[in-house]
């Protein structure tokens, strides 16, 4: 086992950097908590009957008046903070992962094809990417959200919120993938194994996906991690701006927005606990992304 770890650069580095291991543990714990929220969380925060106003504004257990029934306290509605946070993280992660997945499929597909085909197709894709760059992520997401408000009939708006939000985030992140995939594909195109496959007469799709794709996965994996963090941040930001998810199905960003109302009034836990949770999640994803970048790009170490 030890020998195995020594031989594998990535594993060796992993076991020798405490911060990365801590980040992995934190990320994993949050992931498990989010995935199993319905079974772990003490109450269902979406179910109005499961909490009462009587329990409103209770502080965490270690503060005066805190009770062990609500270890992290409650909000003004009497919702258990732990349950809200777990369900919120669940929603944030679902949106983040879906958005990242859509963005990576779209971006990698276009970038790979642009790099492989080149010429006009490449030029068109890159011009679209340029335009997208002129309209930064938050702007694009806000815009798509605005358009959805204009187009969708009011009765659908609430139901479609998660879908619209996911699409808005995905569409604002695909450029990263496309540019990275294209640049890496260009590098691979000059490699002789690609030329060998081309002159053998292999199918272009096979060359793209069986030959080139595995060789550019490294940088793409880095982008995926970094963009997952971005997606979660973007969702939180949009929800904070009041344009993301509504208060009855709160994500982490919504929880923070609600908590803002208590910034001045002393119920600090309603604001700061979800905030800390969000930061811990994103920091650990970014630490992992940074680690991957080091593994795939050793010269920066």
């Amino acid at each position, binding site marked *: 086992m030890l020998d195995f770890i020594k031989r594998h650069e990535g594993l060796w580095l992993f076991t020798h950097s405490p911060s990365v291991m801590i980040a992995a543990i934190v990320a994993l714990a949050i992931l498990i908590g989010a995935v199993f929220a319905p079974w772990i969380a003490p109450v269902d925060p979406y179910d109005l009957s499961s909490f009462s106003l009587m329990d409103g504004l209770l502080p965490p257990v270690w503060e005066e008046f805190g009770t062990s029934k609500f270890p992290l306290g409650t909000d003004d509605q009497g919702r258990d903070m732990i349950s809200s946070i777990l369900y919120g993280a669940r929603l944030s992660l679902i949106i983040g992962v879906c958005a990242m997945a859509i963005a990576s499929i779209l971006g990698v597909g276009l970038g790979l094809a642009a790099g492989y085909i080149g010429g006009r197709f490449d030029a068109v894709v890159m011009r679209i990417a340029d335009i997208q760059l*002129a*309209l930064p992520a938050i*702007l694009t997401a806000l815009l798509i959200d605005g*358009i959805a408000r*204009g187009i969708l009939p009011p009765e659908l708006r609430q139901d479609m919120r998660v879908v619209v939000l996911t699409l808005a985030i995905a569409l604002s992140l695909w450029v990263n993938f496309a540019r990275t995939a294209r640049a890496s594909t260009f590098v691979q195109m000059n490699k002789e194994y690609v030329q060998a496959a081309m002159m053998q007469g292999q199918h272009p799709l096979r060359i793209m996906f069986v030959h080139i794709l595995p060789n550019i996965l490294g940088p793409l994996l880095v982008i995926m991690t970094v963009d997952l963090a971005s997606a979660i941040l973007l969702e939180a*930001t949009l929800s904070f701006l009041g344009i993301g998810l509504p208060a009855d199905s709160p994500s982490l*960003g919504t929880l923070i927005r609600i908590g803002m109302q208590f910034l001045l009034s002393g119920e600090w836990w309603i604001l700061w606990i979800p905030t800390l949770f969000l930061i811990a999640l994103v920091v650990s994803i970014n630490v992992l992304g940074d680690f991957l970048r080091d593994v795939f790009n050793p010269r920066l170490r």
Partner: protein
Amino acid sequence: MVFFLTKRLIQSVFVMLAVAFLAFSLFRYVGDPVSQMTGVETSVEDRERLREDLGLNDPFVYQFVRFTGDLLKGDFGYSYRTRQPVAEMIASRIPATLELGLVALMISLLVGIPAGVYTALRPRGFATQTILMLTLVGVSIPTFVIGIMLIFFFGVQLGWLPTFGRGGTVSVGGWETSFLTIDGWRSLILPALTLGVYQLTLTMRLVRAEMMDVMQSDYIRFATARGVPMGRMYFRHALSNTMVPVITIIGLQFGGVIAFSIVTESVFQWPGMGLLFLESIRFVDIPVMGVYLVVIAFFFVLVNLIVDLLYVLIDPRLRISDVS
């Protein structure tokens, strides 16, 4: 060189046209402009006349050309919400956003570049590791949380700085500036920090990566082998070569500054374009949304053209054709 710049200019025009087209499609197809402009009591004939007056029955291409022409003339239409001319609304908000963005960018560059150079030259030092860890946390904290934290500490707990609005501004030739009053500066500090911190971490990490790359290059090794003094090597040889890619990215970052100014302006109730945009989204005020897009894209394109010029100034390979 001339060709390089003309090419970029043509590309810029292309980007602007595409964004104009986007704004046009927004205006034309998201919701019905006529029903937005009229009330329930307007008769069908009146609506039809308005439709004819606005030229909404004309062919598509013709409408788009007229829309673009109007944009060029500075005629940006009227807000659905306030019925004011959009041009005026946006123009009155531009100074606030630009000043905020400018100060944030300055913070990002003045701190980010030296920190990047330092961490590249001492990659294994304790200070470097600490700075790197801090920047990692920096990129992971959403801008609005940074804003809330700053408000909480400096505004609420310590009570040192104002937490919303621009404070005292002075009008210089119609440009409302915060730069000329102490109150204005005090109000500017927290929002500019909020906006600057994120950009700062990006700048620092980029400068560091590029600098480390350059330090590995043959010409730096050759300069070391010739005994060129260290200071000269770091700043004359390495840093100038680092600047070429860094400048490009800073051009792109400007877009980020503008985008995140939406968030910052919302947190600090800063009366800039971003806040206006947010309000227009909430009320589906399409003309304002569209024009905001066009204005942002224009600034973006402008900054990137300036970047291209700088590029040409720094890199002789773009200025002077080579031997072959």
